[in-house]
């Protein structure tokens, strides 16, 4: 189980990068370009609140997993 936890760490880091890509280029930036104020607020929240929390948070989680911080003897 310890090895699976570590290997999955890579998966979480890749997922974090994918989330950042989709959040920025599919949800965030297109919303800023519609010209509608509701979309503007939504786009700003996606870019500056959701993306950093999800992507950076998930990437750090993946890094900890990869380093073995979630191994049973360290919990």
């Amino acid at each position, binding site marked *: 189980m310890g090895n699976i936890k570590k290997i999955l760490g890579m998966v*979480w880091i890749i997922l974090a990068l994918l989330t950042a890509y989709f959040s920025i280029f599919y949800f965030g930036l297109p919303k800023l370009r519609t010209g509608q104020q*509701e979309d503007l607020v939504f786009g700003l*929240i996606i870019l500056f609140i959701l993306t950093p929390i999800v992507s950076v948070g998930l990437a750090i*989680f993946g890094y900890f997993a990869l380093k073995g911080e979630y191994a049973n003897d360290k919990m």
Partner: protein
Amino acid sequence: MQNKNKTLWKVIGASSLGTLIEWYDFFIFGSLSVVLSTKFFPADNPTAAFLSTLATFAAGFVVRPFGALFFGRLGDLIGRKYTFMVTLMLMGGATFLIGCTPSYESIGFLAPLIVLVLRLLQGLALGGEYGGAATYVAEHSPEGERGYWTSWIQTTATFGLFISLVVILLTRLFLSESQFDEWGWRIPFVLSIFMVFVSYLIRKNMDESPEFTKAKAEGKTAKNPLKESFGNIYNLKYVLLALFGAAMGQGVVWYTGQFYSMSFMKTVMFLHTDQADLILGIALLLGTPFFVVFGRLSDKVGRKWVMLAGMLLAICTYRPIYACMYQLTNIQTKTERLDLRAVETSFVKHGDSHNRVTRTSKTFTDGTEVTQAVTTQITEANNPILKDGMPQESSRTTVFLKGSNYALLVGLIFIQIIYITLVYGPIAAFLVEIFPVKIRYTSMSLPYHIGNGIFGGLLPAVSTYLASNAQTKGQSDFYLSGLWYPIIVASICFVIGSIYITKTMTANQIK
């Protein structure tokens, strides 16, 4: 033992009542958003509409986690009791003042600005309240029973939504439509101050949590809770695990069952608003006791698998459930009783414009009633006004369900409420148990409010985006596409939770 239980019930009562009122305060703004927008945020004014969007998004997404940090820090420094007294007063005061704020017509831009600030204060207070109440109750509870006792706090969010629907429904019942529109909508807001006052009196006489009192007496409280919570790798990894392995999945399951279902009934199934509210209300009422059932169960079998079972069930059954809901009002598959069809036409004059409203009522063999109202802009001579050669028409469909279809819909919503009780019932105890006393309030509040405020709060916007995208592409089951967001988020959370959450992680911290 009896005395101890009596004290615990007093603690539960005082904490739950306050938290219930806070949820009530938070939800009435959402439930009355249509009225509020006409009073404070006129759509034809772009700045006011912008402030409205900010009030909707910011209070739920941005401010709640900040409230969690601000009040969490305070709670770990000066104590749980005083902190959640402050959040209670802040929430009650803000809600009361929203009810007293003059409309846009009276004071112009100041009105939406005041309401925005008050709404942000509501979000801030909510961010601080929940963690305080959950921590306070958990720290009074005997070991091995935290799931049961904290589950009472867990009922408050759902019950708060239920009470807000009931208060609005009763206010509407006793007032005429014009009275409600003119001043009646203020009643649910103003009422809050009385409830908060009662709750304040009850909470005032409560003692500080025993675990915090002990830690303080021994000089073991945190000097800098924020730094110790998030600057320390050992604790940060728990915060991240709590977020990605529990809270984010719980947030999307919670929002799908309570809010996406409501919006689906009203905007996709075209169910009459009152009927949709009532169906949700019944399901909430029937489902609420299960928070306690699953909280208790988590004491026996562990928190992890009770929460993850709720997520797994949601992942596997959301699409069939919503497909079934959709079919309940899909008139393409029903047989109409033509002998009961009725058509009536009325004329409405708004200023200089004239409208012709043609209302067609259809009844189907299974008892479903559908009313389609087509509004056509006409000239004084009763001829349709044409624009680019086309008549200016808008259509509105309202569906009423009856008999077994009605019961089936209640059942389908009830199932989703059960999923909520599975994931939400034990989560307070789970979060409390993985963090040590000195930084518990701060550490548990942040993942909870990010999971709910951000992952859950964004659900309506993201799901609507996915569904409208699918509709544009011509997908026949576009109405199910919005479910991909909760399904994917809950799936990731399920995998993380099942692999990384271990029994030892809680055992190390409780001591």
